């Protein structure tokens, strides 16, 4: 989440909203956001319905995998980063800055 926060201005400039999601409570996520200086919403998927819908629920940990989805204005997925690859969102930021996505 910190890495996305660092890239937030660049993402804002390309008409891109950032949303974090975890299976923690909304209140824990607010405290987490404050602690690490995140200003975008950290949504609560308490119970994991959305995490399961996205096929990234891990039974062993009863939590989500770390995955970034970049979704275009048409609602279609443009880019995905999974597990370790999701730690550095540079690929997603670069895609957002491609000229055709700026409209």
């Amino acid at each position: 989440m910190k890495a996305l926060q660092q890239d937030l201005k660049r993402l804002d400039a390309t008409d891109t909203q950032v949303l974090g999601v975890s299976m923690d409570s909304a209140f824990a996520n607010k405290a987490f956001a404050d602690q690490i200086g995140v200003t975008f919403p950290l949504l609560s998927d308490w119970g994991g319905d959305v995490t399961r819908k996205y096929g990234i629920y891990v039974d062993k940990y009863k939590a989500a995998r770390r995955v970034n989805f970049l979704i275009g204005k048409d609602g279609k997925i443009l880019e995905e980063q999974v597990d370790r690859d999701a730690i550095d969102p540079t690929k997603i930021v670069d895609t957002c800055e491609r000229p055709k996505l700026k409209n």
Partner: protein
Amino acid sequence: MRNKLSNGLAASLLAGMLVFASAAPAGAQSTPASASSMPKVGDVAPDFALNYFDGNDLKPVSLSQYRGKKNVVVAFFVFAFTGG
């Protein structure tokens, strides 16, 4: 005679163990079923409506509210207070 018998027994035991050993890993290693149902690039992202806490109230956010307006990065993370 006795030697032959025990040799035969040992061989069949060994064979049995080999069969068991080769069968075991297949059963022990289960691939996560969730991976197969993850939406792919080009798919329409499943809609969702979730809340975040802004310090005063729970605020609803849906993916569909950005349709036609903004790109969205949906960043799933494992647990609050772990890593970045």
